[in-house]
């Protein structure tokens, strides 16, 4: 860290940086959510299935995020683990209408939690029960019990319903995540 940036962060002008990993099954809405979190003029109109991964940057009041938008398609899911090491927070997006694949999402989540890089670290995990506007969506409470989130040990987690298209529920989630990450970063320093 250079002198100026140190000074800036001391004075609170420069925001702290945090790496956030966006994971979840394909078609759950990860890219749409990130798109909505970006400043309005940088948003895209069309969201297409992500191939491999993309990196996006955006800020909120306290933190500057570097989001790793991972592809959720079956053949790219093994890329996720390569980014576990550097991440400060994880966002797990679930399509709350896709009842058939809750079992798959649960499986992918338990594989993630069991990974060596994640297992012992206190990384905050935010769950988005996305597509809450659709008629046959499952509530966040029901979803958390279906995915057995209460069994997660040694990690703070939070679940909120969201609508990636309108942005509903996103601020609640990101505020929680930035609070958790800030306190974690402070502890590290």
């Amino acid at each position, binding site marked *: 860290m250079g002198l100026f940036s140190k000074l800036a962060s001391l004075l609170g002008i420069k925001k702290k940086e945090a790496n956030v990993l966006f994971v979840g099954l394909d078609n759950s809405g990860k890219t749409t959510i990130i798109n909505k979190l970006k400043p309005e003029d940088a948003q895209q109109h069309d969201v297409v299935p992500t191939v491999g991964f993309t990196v996006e940057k955006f800020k909120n009041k306290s933190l500057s995020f570097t989001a790793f938008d991972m592809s959720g398609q079956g053949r790219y899911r093994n890329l996720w683990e390569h980014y576990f090491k550097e991440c400060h927070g994880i966002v797990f997006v679930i399509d709350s209408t896709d009842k058939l694949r*809750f079992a798959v999402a649960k499986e992918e989540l338990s594989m993630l939690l069991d990974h060596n890089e994640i297992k012992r670290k206190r990384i905050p995990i935010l769950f988005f029960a996305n597509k809450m506007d659709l008629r046959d969506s499952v509530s966040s409470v029901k979803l958390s019990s279906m995915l057995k989130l209460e069994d997660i040990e040694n990690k703070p987690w939070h679940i909120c319903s969201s609508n990636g298209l309108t942005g509903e529920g996103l601020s609640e989630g990101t505020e929680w995540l930035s609070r958790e990450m800030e306190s974690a970063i402070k502890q590290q320093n």
Partner: protein
Amino acid sequence: MIVFSWYRGSNEKWLDAYKDPVASLYTLTQCITLSDVQADGDWKLIIADLGTGTFDMKLKVYKGTNLMSENTIIDLPTGVETFYMDTHEPRTPAIAVASGPYIYVYKNLRPYFKFTLPTLEVNPVEADLWNQVKEEKINIFVLREMLEGMRAEGTVLTVRSLRFLQLQDITDCEAFANLYRFTPLRRQTVITSLATLKKSHADEDAISCLVLGTESKSVYVLDPEAFTVLTTMELPSVPVFLSVTGLFDVEYRIVVACRNGCIYTLKRGTTVTTKNCIELNSQPVGLQRINKTIYVGTMDEALHCYTSKGKKLWTVKLPASMTTMEIIDYKPKGFKAVIVALSNCNVHIYKEKYLVNIIKTDDVVTGLKFGRFGREDGTLIMTLRAMHRTFQRDLYLLRLNTAREYVKSLENRMNPISSDPQEPLKLNATVQGIGPMFKLTVNLQNTSLSNPSTNLLITFQYDDKLYAFKNSFIEVPMLVPGLNYAFETYVECQSDKGISDNVKVYILRQGKSIPIITGIISMPCTDVEPIANVKKKNQDDF
């Protein structure tokens, strides 16, 4: 019941995804398919539901766990396949449902085309017989006798003649003959099995022909655009399972398991097959192929493996009889295996001849399908025999039979004189009065010579909104033969609308629910207004 599981290839092989115990589906492996019918990357589950086996046949399309569309099928479905019939964008495949002598083609989940199998030659003697009926040269008895003779000789008759022979009642026979004698006689066959064959390209979304096996021992290949028969191949027996590889325009192999317990291989250019056959020890229950090996499950609780040349590789004895089989082809891990459903509620997975996995289910699996569903590879769909459904149907049948018998018995006794020699009774009822209060007299006479009648009861059936009986239940003393006994009760009409109804009198024996005799009394209309109303009217006038 329908069960979905995801294949994971790793330690824990299956993830239980979803179970729908009230799906009330009755279907078989041949009637289940998975396809991207809307070309949106979300694969749908297509099921031809056999309903009760006689009613309620439906083509159902599931998007995830939700029923997305439903189309009624007129006859019992025997197979469902999806195929690309054109090169238009977006690449939406058509659904073909085999049912009776027809192939129903659905595009965009709507009925699109109906293909009818070519009719077969009618036996000239049979045709002549029906012709004579038409010209009224012979009566139905001669027709029946002649047809029965032909059937006994082993002649293949038309559906019309078979149905005619099934009829028991002479009046039904006559009505049937009169109804159909002017329509031309046709012999149609029934589709037993359905498969697809790529026409000239091997791409996943290339145009495919439909391949059908029929009850008339032939295999047809249909053109996907014009729906004309491209090739007909004859077999020594009825084909029941088809397995197709190759391209129609280049070279192809159709492996056919037949009802006579033989497996034949049809190639491009074959028209009549007698050789190239694998003889099984027992009837086939399922036929699948992985690359060049043929897997056959047979009724003697065994799974056999053959090379495409017909050489036997191995046989595995199964712990119970097999109900159906399917192939697992999980491309992400390059895993191929045979999955076999057994009658002991287990599903076995065989990698070559080794049992690698067992899935336990709540009931016997009747339909299996493995493939891509929704947006994920590797779903196993299992449809289970619906115990509840069988029970429900039997219950309905029981109720129906009971109701029928009851109506029959009521109708039989709808007689003022008992037909039963054990209960010789005569009933006669009269109504006196001008209303609203009537006097109803039931006269009973024991018509036997010497036997007295005991333990009899009189009861009435009436509309309780219309009439009030003072005594709706009368106990009858012993009836001495030959004497006339009168039993009286008062009936009050409750309505001032000037309407009347029938009242039924039942004579019952204690402890038996079937009446001995029934009398119907047509009640007269009330001529006078009920007193209460008259009073009220008078008050109003003042």
